[in-house]
């Protein structure tokens, strides 16, 4: 067994990361098909499942995107299987079309959707609270407060899904998914659902929302909607009985409603404040629908209520609606009217301790003034650490080439345009090209005119960045709006290409957008932890797979000018990108550059695993002229000695890619010792 979650040892106690706990829950439930698309902080669920899938005899796959993953899971559940689909918050946006439609007929198998939100946006474009999406669709939401509960809820979710023939939505957050805790294993369900197909199973034309199903005087989707709403009424009753909702009695008439991480922080706060047993607590494990019977009992026992939940005031707003009828006189504290918690950022224990203390009329833990002052003084010397690409990252080569190609193209057309290029970013490791340097202060401008900004590192090269696949669409809009002040470029990685860029590329060809699209193909979905993409040649379960070449796809979609380059060849990269940009400008067509080189981290790992000793590079201090070009490459292994005014290389970080040696104009950077260079690793 390649992972502990596959062990059939009920009662075993181990430390599991939240995502591993979700995976264990699915294993205990006897999952038959698991599909997902990577996205921090959700990826380890599928990663863990794919490690045990073969041994336990179920199918696990990384789909090309979340939408396809959910479609696959729905298909599996339509033939009776127990299925799980996993995604991050942004991915849940991608599945909404199927998610909001599949509930109309429901499913004979089980469908569990795990969506990992990211309050504080540690790894995401937004802090989106996906509970609203699931409530909009009208399915049961479960939200765990510990890793143990993550496992238990997932297991139960399969039963609930089968019971009501509807998907069950599990909402995780970073502090569940990416935190670890002790978990006690339960039994693994041995029986497997029979795989069958009957298109009229329990409901006529079940899997065809348009089918002539008649119900409550309606037909088609409307009739199926009526059926779903009836199911939802049953779920509303049922949630009063699920063990994840419960009342903890208090000795005062103060009440706290707490869900998910909010519950964990409330419990920790009460210990911290020595106030255990004082407030009443309604622990909510189903933020939708709320357990109304328990809610009434709870409300009757208290005079005012504090709501603690991670994300938006989702329960709080439902509570306001409920209280308007039931007990309008009792005040509600939380994230809205009587605000004691911020609506943005993560909840965090500090904030909750303070809110709970205030609510209970206790003193929160305090740091005295002199210590506060000391801390301020000390904080002033702490340099920020901006996010950076890895040592040896092939994207460094692409960005170097792009930076100089842009400068050269701009000067070539000096008379024709203002030379203000736009580089549209996308989501992947290369998005760090838009993170900037935290230590720099930027002053916003106010004039509505094109303006060029110069920079000396790869971390300021991206001008726009929103969502996966967004860059190439944005580029087209800029062009179609008539932007002609400079070249328009978009970048994306291989995984992002297959996820979301193919329709946009077809669109660029068909609607004639003169843009340059650079695909930074490192063969992996690197940022989320090196899951395979169709560029890798491996499936989630470790089977070899057919590599789909991005050049072939681009050509098939009608792109006439497709270039391939190795980003470890810095000159060629610059020249190729320049050629692609010039071609698109002159011929008024989209052009594509595939910058291909496997992720340096993967190669270095492979080297280490096979006992290959990589060399590292060093700066010959006598030769170094202090021009800083190698530092401008942006590799974290290349440092700058301010006193000596010379560059140096950190031997622990260096992976011997040789990029900095290429940019050095005086050949001062050389291998430090005998050993293999990264490009020589098989």
């Amino acid at each position: 067994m390649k992972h502990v979650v596959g062990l059939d040892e009920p009662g075993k106690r181990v430390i599991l990361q939240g995502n591993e706990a979700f995976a264990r829950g699915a294993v205990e439930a006897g999952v038959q098909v698991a599909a997902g698309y990577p996205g921090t902080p959700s990826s380890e669920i599928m990663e863990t499942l794919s490690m045990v899938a073969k041994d336990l005899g179920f199918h696990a796959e990384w789909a090309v995107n979340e939408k396809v993953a959910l479609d696959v899971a729905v298909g599996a559940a339509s033939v009776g299987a127990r299925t799980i689909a996993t995604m991050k918050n942004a991915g849940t946006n991608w599945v909404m079309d199927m998610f909001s439609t599949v509930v109309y007929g429901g499913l004979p198998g089980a469908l569990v959707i795990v969506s990992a939100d990211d309050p504080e946006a540690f790894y995401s474009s937004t802090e989106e609270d996906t509970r609203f999406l699931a409530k909009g669709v009208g399915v049961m939401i479960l939200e765990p407060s510990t890793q143990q509960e993550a496992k238990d809820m997932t297991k139960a979710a399969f039963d609930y899904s089968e019971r009501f023939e509807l998907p069950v939505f599990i909402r995780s957050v970073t502090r569940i998914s990416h935190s670890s805790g002790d978990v006690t294993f339960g039994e693994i369900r041995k029986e497997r659902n029979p795989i069958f197909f009957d298109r009229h199973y329990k409901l006529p034309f079940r899997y065809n929302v348009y089918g002539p199903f008649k119900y409550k005087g309606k037909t088609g989707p409307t009739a199926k909607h009526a059926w779903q709403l009836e199911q939802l009424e049953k779920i509303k009753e049922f949630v009063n009985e699920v063990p994840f909702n419960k009342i903890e009695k208090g000795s005062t008439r103060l009440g706290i409603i707490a869900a998910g991480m909010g519950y964990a922080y409330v419990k920790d706060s009460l210990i911290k404040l020595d106030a255990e047993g004082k407030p009443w607590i309604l622990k909510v494990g189903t933020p939708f629908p709320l357990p109304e019977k328990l809610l009434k009992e709870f409300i009757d026992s208290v005079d005012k209520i504090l709501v603690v939940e991670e994300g938006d005031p989702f329960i709080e707003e439902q509570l306001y609606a409920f209280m308007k009828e039931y007990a309008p006189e009792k005040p509600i504290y939380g994230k809205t009217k009587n605000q004691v918690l911020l609506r943005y950022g993560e909840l965090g224990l500090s904030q909750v301790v303070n809110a709970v203390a205030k609510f209970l009329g206790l003193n929160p833990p305090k740091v005295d003034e002199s210590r506060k002052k000391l801390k301020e003084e000390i904080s002033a010397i702490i340099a920020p650490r901006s996010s950076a690409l890895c040592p040896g990252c092939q994207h460094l080569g692409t960005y170097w080439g792009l930076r100089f190609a842009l400068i050269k193209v701009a000067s070539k057309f000096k008379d024709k345009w203002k030379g203000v290029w736009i580089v549209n970013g996308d989501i992947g490791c290369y998005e760090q090209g838009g993170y900037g340097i935290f230590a720099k202060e930027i002053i916003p401008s106010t004039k509505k005119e094109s303006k060029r900004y110069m920079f000396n590192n790869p971390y300021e090269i991206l001008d726009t960045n929103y969502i996966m696949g967004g860059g190439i669409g944005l580029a087209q809009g800029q062009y179609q709006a008539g932007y002609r002040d400079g070249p328009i470029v978009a970048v994306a990685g291989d995984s992002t290409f297959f996820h979301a860029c193919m329709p946009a590329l077809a669109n660029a060809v068909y609607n004639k957008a003169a843009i340059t699209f650079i695909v930074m193909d490192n063969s992996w979905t690197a940022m989320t932890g090196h899951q395979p993409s169709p560029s890798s040649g491996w499936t989630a379960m470790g089977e070899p797979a057919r590599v789909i070449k991005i050049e072939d796809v681009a050509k098939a979609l009608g792109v006439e000018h497709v270039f391939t380059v190795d980003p470890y060849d810095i000159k060629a990269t610059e020249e190729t990108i320049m050629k692609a940009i010039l071609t698109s400008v002159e011929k008024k067509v989209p052009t594509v550059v595939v910058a291909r080189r496997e992720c340096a981290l993967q190669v270095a790992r492979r080297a280490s695993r096979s006992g290959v000793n990589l060399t590292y590079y060093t700066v010959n201090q006598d030769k170094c002229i202090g021009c800083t070009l190698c530092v401008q490459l942006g590799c974290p292994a290349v440092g700058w000695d301010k006193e000596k005014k010379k560059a140096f290389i950190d031997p622990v970080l260096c992976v011997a890619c040789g990029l900095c040696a290429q940019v050095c104009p005086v050949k001062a950077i050389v291998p430090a010792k005998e050993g293999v260079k990264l490009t020589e690793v098989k």
Partner: protein
Amino acid sequence: MAGRNYYLMIAGVGGQGSVLLSRIIGDAALMKGLSVRIGETFGAAQRGGAVHSHVRIGEEVYGPLLIEDEADALLALEPLEGLRRGVIYLKPGGIAVVNTRKVYPIDVNVGAADYPEVEKILDALKKLGARLVAYDFTKLAEEAGTTRAMNIAVLGAYARMIEEADAPFDKVTLLEAMKGRVPKRWLDANIKAFELGYKVADEEISGK
């Protein structure tokens, strides 16, 4: 009523092995029959970004996060990151084990910020009330066979430091837990790194 809980903060840079370190400590706590929560954030990058782990150990713990001035111990795999977390979380009188080997942020390399002198970092930690052992544990690990065992050298030093303090586990447990987590082919190097780290702290404590 819960007994007194134990809190740890681990700070470093991506790729230094802070996650493994937190798991080892978690296992050690589990061996003692306690509950564990570990909260990790590692930035968007696979390598090079600031990484830190909150570790909470006790009979009754729920969430993974520490609050200000709560950490009984700070394990700093990189000095600047150690101070970044230490200034918030380390309690007065807490233990701090600091690897003095610097990893420059990009901000420093491109000239937008200065890396504070390591002496100043250590001094600041002392002012915050740290009981400190600082050393180039990267070099120590290299002597043991691989720079990658640096995290374990730090763990070794920590194992000595807790002999002078209240902690839920001891050297033997930590060593056992470590053996269960590191790759087999690096086991010897890691045991050596652990012992070398232990010795460094021992010499510091006994004033040698």
